[in-house]
C-alpha cells in the first residue's frame, strides 16, 4: 500500500518543465496547421450544427407545433436542453472563481478550458428560451425597455428572472475569462510573426507588458471578478430552478430545488469538463500539465455532488410522503412507476449508481472508467431535467387532461444541433486561444516556488 504524505501538496504540473517548454506545449496547436483529426472532428460538429439549423428553420417557419410539445406538456426538449446546458455551464465559473478564492491550485491547469466551456454552454442554453416561444420574433418583449405603450415586464415571473440571471452570468463569465486571457494574449503577441495576428493580439492584450505593476493590477482585478462571479454560480441555477419551484405543479413546487439544481449543475458541468479534457490532454500531449491528479480531484467533486443529487432524489420522495399531499405523492410514484419510469431509472442509474465507482481510487484514476462514468453522468443529468419537466406535466391535477409527450425529429434535431454548436465552438477555441492559462501554470510550477532545496 502506497503511503500518501498529506502534508506535502502534490505538484500541479508533473515533472519540472522549463518555462519555455510550457509555452511551446500550450501554444503549439495555435501555431501549427490543423491536423486531419481536427478537420474530421469539426466537420462532424458542423454537420450536427447544420442538422440543428435545419430543424430550427422548420420550427421558425411552421411553428413550435413541429415539436412534440402539447397540452398538457407545454415544455419538452426545449426547456430540458436549456436547463441541461445551463448546468454544463456551471463548472467553469465554479472552477475559476470559487476554487480560485479557495486557493485550490490544481484548478490552474483546467480553469481556462472550463471557463470557455461555460461560455459556450451558456450560449447553447441561451438559445433555447429564445426559440421555445410561440412567437420568437417578439422575444424582445421580455426586456424591460421603456415604451410608449407603457407596457412593462412582469417581475413576478421566474422566466423574467431567468432572462436577467442568464444574461448576467454570461456577461460576467465572459469578462472574467477575457481578463484571465490578457497575459496569455500578450505572450501570443510576442511570439507571433504574422502581421495580422499580431495586430489582433495587440489589440486584445490591451498593451500588456508583463510589468510588475500590470501584474499587481491584474491580480487585484481577477480577485475582484472572482468574488463577483462566485455568487453567480449559485444564483443562476437557483433562479433556473425557480422556473419550476415557483409554479404550483406537483413535483415542481418544492423548496429543495435551488440547492438540488446547483449541485446537479456542478455535477454535470464537471462531468462535461472532464470528458473534454481527457481528449484534449491526450491529443495535445499535455498530460503533464493536466495531470491525472487533477482529474482525480474532479472525480471527487463529482462523487460529492452526485451524492448530493442522490440525496435530493430521496428527499423528494420523503417530503412527498411526509407532506401528506396525495397529488404530490402520486407525482413521485408516477415518476418511478408510471409511463416514464424508464427515464427515471435511467437518471437514477447514471447519476447515483455509476458515480459510486469513484469511491475506489483505482477507478478514480482510470481514464477509461472515469470517462465512461462522466458520459453516463451527462446522460443522467439530461434525463433528470427530462423527468422533472415532462413527467410532472404529463400527469398533473386533473386526470382528464393527462397526456404523453413524444419528441419529434425536430426536437432531436435541435438537441443534436446544440451539441454541434457547442463542439464547433470548442474546436474553434482550441485552434485560436491557449487552452491552458500559460501565465498561471508557470506560477504553479515546482521550479517557480520558493525552494529551500527540499528543506522547509
Amino acid at each position, binding site marked *: 500500500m502506497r503511503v500518501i504524505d498529506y502534508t506535502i501538496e502534490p505538484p500541479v504540473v508533473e515533472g519540472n518543465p522549463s518555462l519555455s517548454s510550457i509555452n511551446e506545449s500550450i501554444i503549439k496547436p495555435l501555431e501549427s496547421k490543423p491536423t486531419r483529426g481536427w478537420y474530421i472532428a469539426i466537420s462532424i460538429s458542423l454537420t450536427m450544427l447544420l442538422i440543428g439549423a435545419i430543424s430550427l428553420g422548420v420550427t421558425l417557419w411552421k411553428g413550435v407545433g413541429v415539436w412534440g410539445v402539447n*397540452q398538457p406538456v407545454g415544455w419538452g426538449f426545449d426547456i430540458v436542453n436549456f436547463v441541461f446546458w445551463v448546468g454544463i455551464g456551471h463548472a467553469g465559473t465554479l472552477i475559476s472563481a470559487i476554487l480560485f478564492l479557495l486557493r485550490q491550485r490544481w484548478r490552474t491547469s483546467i480553469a481556462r478550458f472550463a471557463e470557455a466551456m461555460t461560455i459556450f454552454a451558456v450560449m447553447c442554453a441561451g438559445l433555447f428560451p429564445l426559440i421555445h416561444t410561440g412567437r420568437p420574433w417578439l422575444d424582445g418583449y*421580455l426586456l424591460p425597455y421603456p415604451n410608449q405603450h407603457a407596457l412593462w415586464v412582469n417581475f413576478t415571473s421566474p*422566466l*423574467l428572472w431567468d432572462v436577467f440571471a442568464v444574461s448576467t452570468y454570461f456577461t460576467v463569465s465572459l469578462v472574467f475569462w477575457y481578463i484571465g486571457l490578457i497575459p496569455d494574449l500578450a505572450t501570443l503577441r510576442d511570439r507571433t510573426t504574422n502581421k495580422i495576428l499580431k495586430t489582433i493580439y495587440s489589440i486584445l492584450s490591451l498593451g500588456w507588458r508583463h510589468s510588475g505593476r500590470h501584474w499587481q493590477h491584474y491580480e487585484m482585478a481577477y480577485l475582484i471578478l472572482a468574488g463577483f462571479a462566485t455568487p453567480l454560480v449559485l444564483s443562476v441555477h437557483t433562479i433556473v430552478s425557480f422556473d419550476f419551484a*415557483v409554479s404550483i405543479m406537483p413535483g415542481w413546487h418544492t423548496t429543495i430545488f435551488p440547492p438540488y439544481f446547483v449541485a446537479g449543475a456542478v455535477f454535470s458541468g464537471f462531468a462535461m469538463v472532464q470528458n473534454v479534457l481527457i481528449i484534449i490532454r491526450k491529443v495535445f500531449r499535455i498530460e503533464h500539465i493536466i495531470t491525472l491528479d487533477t482529474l482525480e480531484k474532479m472525480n471527487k467533486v463529482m462523487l460529492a455532488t452526485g451524492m448530493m443529487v442522490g440525496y435530493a432524489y430521496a428527499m423528494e420522495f420523503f417530503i412527498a410522503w411526509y407532506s401528506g399531499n*396525495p397529488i404530490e405523492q402520486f407525482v413521485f410514484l408516477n415518476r418511478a412507476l408510471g409511463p416514464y419510469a424508464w427515464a427515471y431509472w435511467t437518471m437514477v442509474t447514471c447519476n447515483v449508481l455509476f458515480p459510486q465507482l469513484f469511491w475506489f481510487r483505482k477507478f478514480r484514476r482510470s481514464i477509461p472508467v472515469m470517462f465512461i462514468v462522466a458520459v453516463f453522468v451527462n446522460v443522467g443529468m439530461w434525463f433528470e431535467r427530462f423527468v422533472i419537466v415532462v413527467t410532472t406535466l404529463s400527469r398533473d*391535477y386533473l386526470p382528464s387532461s393527462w397526456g*404523453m409527450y413524444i419528441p419529434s425529429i425536430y426536437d432531436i434535431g435541435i438537441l443534436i444541433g446544440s451539441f454541434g454548436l457547442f463542439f464547433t465552438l470548442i474546436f474553434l477555441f482550441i485552434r485560436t486561444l491557449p487552452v491552458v492559462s500559460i501565465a498561471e501554470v508557470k506560477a504553479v510550477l515546482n521550479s517557480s516556488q520558493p525552494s529551500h532545496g527540499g528543506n522547509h
Partner: protein
Amino acid sequence: MENKNSGKEYWKSLREYYDPEELKKIKHDEFLEGAIDFVDLESMPPISRRKFLALLSASSAFAFAACTNYKDKGEIVPYNRQPEEIILGKANYYASTLNCCSRNCSVLIKTREGRPIKIDGNPEHPVSQGKVCVRGQASILNLYDPDRLGEPLQKLSEKVFSSVSWKSAEDQIKKSLNEAVKNGKEIAIISRKINSATALQVLSEFVETYPTAKLYFYDVLTNKNQFYAWKECYNLDSVPSVKLEQAKVILAIESDFLNSDGDFVNQTIRYAKTRNVDDLKNFSRLYVLEGNLTLTGANADYRIKLRSDFIREFLFGLINEINKRVKKQLTIPYNLSQLIAQVDLNVVVKKFNLDEKVIKTLVEDLIRNRGRSVVLAGNRLSKEENILILLINEILDATNLYDFSQSLISLSPENDLNDFQELITKIKKGNVEVLINFDANPVYDLSNLDFKEALKKVNLTVTLSELKTETASLSDFILPIHNPLESWNDFQTYLNVINLQQPVINPLYNTRQKESIILTFVYNEPYHEKMYHKKLKSRWEKEVYPKIKPAVDFESFWYASLHDGFVNLTNNQNIRPTFTLKNFKGSTKTYSDRILLGIHSGAYTFDGRFANNGWLYELPHPITKIVWDNYATVSPAFAKRHNIENGDVIEITNGKVKSQLPVFIQAGVCDNAIFLELGFGHSECGEIGRGVGVNVNKFLNLSSSSRFFDYVSFVNTGKKYNLVTAQEHHALDDTFVKDFHRKRKIIQEGTLEEYEKNKNFIQAERKELLSIVEEVEYKGVKWAMAIDMNKCTGCNVCVVSCIAENNIPMVGKDQVEKGREMHWMRIDTYFSGTPEDVLVSNQPMLCQHCDNAPCENVCPVSATNHSSDGLNQMAYNRCVGTRYCANNCPYKVRRFNFFDFRSEFANDYQYREPLNFLNNPEVTVRSRGVMEKCTFCIQRIMEARQETIEKGIEFDGSGVMTACQQACPSSAIVFGNMNDPKSEIARLRKHDLAYYVLEETNVKPNVSYITRLRNINSEGV
C-alpha cells in the same frame, strides 16, 4: 295612424303624416324598395343606368389600376349607403328554422353586417325555448362551407363534371321529364322526410303535372314505429310529448332521449327541471335500460344493462309483475295477455343476470309513483316494443304525463325500405326514366340497397344538393341548392306550432331554392328567386291564416309570424284517447348465443347529412371521447373472450354485407354485442368529411321490424387502426390511477338521501384555507359561474356554441392525438365502478378565472392578467408564447396555437372563402404562437356594459349571458355578478352543494360546481 287628428300618434316625416297608406305599403314589403333591386338583374333591361355607371366606373378603375401598383390593402370601407336595418357593430337577430333533422327547430340567427354568425334556439318558441342541439349550433358552418356547390354541374363522363348554365340544365331535364311522361316511364323523386306542407304541395303539383312521377320519402333514423304504435293503441296519428318535468320516476328503455334520440331539446329542457336541488320533493329518479352505454345511460341513477334484443322479454315480465299488483283492466288481445302471463319477471332477472335489488326497486318505484312514473321508448325499438311500453304507461297511469298539446306529427309520408327495394327493381328493369334526388343522398343513406348500381340504369339522374355527395357524383345533373339560411319554407313537426323559415343572407352562390327548381318544371316558367316565397305566402293566406283567425290583416299577420319565426295553432286535441289494442303480432325469436349488432345515431353526426361539418367530427364523443372516427363498440368481457384490443380492425359480416371497423372497448356495454354509429364514412362530400370513419348504413336491417338491430358474425383481421381520443382513458382496474377524480375531489357526488339527512355534507368537508398574502377585494361587478351537475347531461351543446362564438379553429385528428385540440370548453368524462357496472361522471371544464390565478404571475410579459371585475384576461398581442401559463394551470384549460391551425389543417380549408364570413367580428382570430382560453365571453360583457354607459345607468352585471350558458338546454350554467346579492349566481355560490375543483390549491376559482346528487336508495345499490 288611422286617426290623423289623434294627438297620440307619432309621425317621423310629413309624408308619413299625410299619406300613411302608401307608407304602410312600403313597410309591408320585405325589403325597402331599391334595397334588393340589384339582386334582380335578370328582370332589368340589359344596360340600366346603374349598370352603365357601374361599367363606366369599373372600366376607369381598371384602367387606373393597371397603371399603378395596385394591391388590395384589405381596407374596411363603410357603406356608402347604409342599409336601413343595419347599425354597424350591432347584431340583428332573425327568427328562422333549421333542417338539421326532422324536428325542424325554430332558431334565432344572429347576423352582423348582413352575415349570419351564430345560431341559437328561438327563445319564444314553445318547443325550442331558446335552445338547439349540437347540430343546430354547428349548422352555421354548413352555410359557409367552401366545398358547397356554387354552379349547376353536368356529368361529362365518369367523375368528370363541367359547369353548365341553369337554363341549359333546365331545358335538358324538362325534355327528359316530358319524354318520360310520353313513354309512360316513371319519374322517381327521392326525398328525406319533409315536414313542410308547402314543399309537399309543390311536390304533389309536380306529380299532377307529370303523372308518371312517384314520390319516395325516407328517414334513416326513423321514428315511425312510435307512430305505428300510437296508431294501433290509440288510433292517433300523432305522438304526444311527455311532461317529464312532472315525472318522479322515469324508465328509459333503449332511449337516448338526452342526446341522439330525436326530441333532444324538448326532453332535455323538461328533464332538467326534475333535477332541481332546491326542489327535492320533485327530484326525479332515472332508470335506464340499455345495451350500449349512451349519454342517457351515463346520467342514470340506476342503469340496467340488458342486450337490446332481450328487451321484449323483459317488458313482458315487467308488465306481468306490475299488473299483478296494479290489476288494471285492459282491453288487450288474448295472445298478448297470454304472452305476458307466460313471463315471470323474476325468471327474466335471473336469466339475464340482472341486479335483483335494482329491478325490485324499479318495480316498487313505478308502482308507488303511479301517475308520476313513465316509461320512455327509444326511437330504435320495434313497433311491438313500443306498444308494450305504451301498455305499461297505461297501467302506470302515465297517460297523465302525456302532453297532447305538443304532439309530434308526421306531415310527410315515409316509405318503407322495401318500397325503395322495389324502386331499384323497377330501375333495373328500365322502367324509370328520370330520378330526382330532392336534397336526398340515397347512395349513402340507403347503402343497404344497391342504389349505386341502379343509378347507372336510369336515363337521367338529377340531384339537388348543397354538396357533391355520393349520389350527386353519380348523377347526370347536380343542381346546387340554397342552404336553409338562404331559403324560404315552413315546417310543422308539432301539432300546435308551425315554424317559418326565412332567408337571412342573400344566396352566396349561384344556387336556387330546391322547391323553386321543382316549381320551374311545374309552372314551365323561368326561375325567379321569389317563386317559392310567393307560393309559401299564398298557401299561408289560404290555409294558415283562416285557421288562426287573427285580428289583423294577412300582411300584418305574415310579418308578425316571420318576426316570431312561428305561429301557434289553437289546439283542439284535449280529449284523452283510450287504449284499444286490437291485435298483437307474436314474439320474435332471440338468439342469445349470436352476436347482436346495434346501430345508433351518430352521437353528433346523426345520420350523416352534416357530411362536411368538421365541428361535429372534432367534437369528442360524449362517452368514448373519440374524435374523427366511428368504431365498433364492444364490452370488455367480449373483447377478452375474443382476444381483441382497442384499435384492432374487425370485419363484421351480415350475409353479403361486410365492413371493417376498428374496435373500441367500452366499459358498461352489454356482452356479446357490437354497436356501431351512423353518420361517418362519406366517400364524397368535400375536403373535411371524405374518408372520415366507416359507412355503416349498409348494416341497416331490411327485414326485421326494427332496422337498427341484427345478428352478425365477425373476424379479427389482425390489422390495427389508430383511434384518437380527446381524453386519455385509464383502465378502470388499474389501481395505480383508479378513482382519482373522486380521491382528488374533482368530482363530488352524493345521494339524495344523504343530502336530505345532512344538508351540510359537502361544506363540512371543506377546509379553511390560509393565505399568506392579502387578498384583492373586488368592489363593483365580479363575474362568476356556477354549473349545476344535476342538470348538466354532458350533451356538448355548450362546447359547439363556444366554438361558434369564439372563432375556434378545427385542428384535425392528428393534432387531437398530439393533445392540441383548441376547444376552450370541454366535457371531462370520468368512469368509476367496474368494467361491467360503470358509473359515469361528466364535468364541463373551462377557465376557472381564479382570483389567485397561477397562470398570471408566471407570464413574463403580463400577457395574461386580471381585470378589476375578476376576469382572467389574455392580451393576445402581448403574448410571446412561452406556454408557462398553460403548464402552471392546474385545470389545463389553456389552449396554445402550436401552428396556424387554420392553414395547417386540411389544405388551408379554414382559410378558403367564404369561411372568413363565419368569424364573430367581436372576437380576435388568434395567430400562431399565441395562448388562448375561455374569456367568459368578454365581448358580450363589454356589449352589455356599453349599453348601460349609453343609457347612463349603473352596470350591475345583469343581462349578460355567456355563449355556453345561452346554449345549455338544461340551463345548468349560471353566470353573473356574484357581488349582486339578488343575483342567481350569488345564491348558488353560497349553496350547500357548491364546491370548487382543486380548492385546496388556493387558486380561488370563480367557477363553482353544484354537487351531483344521485337519486339512489341506501338499501339499493
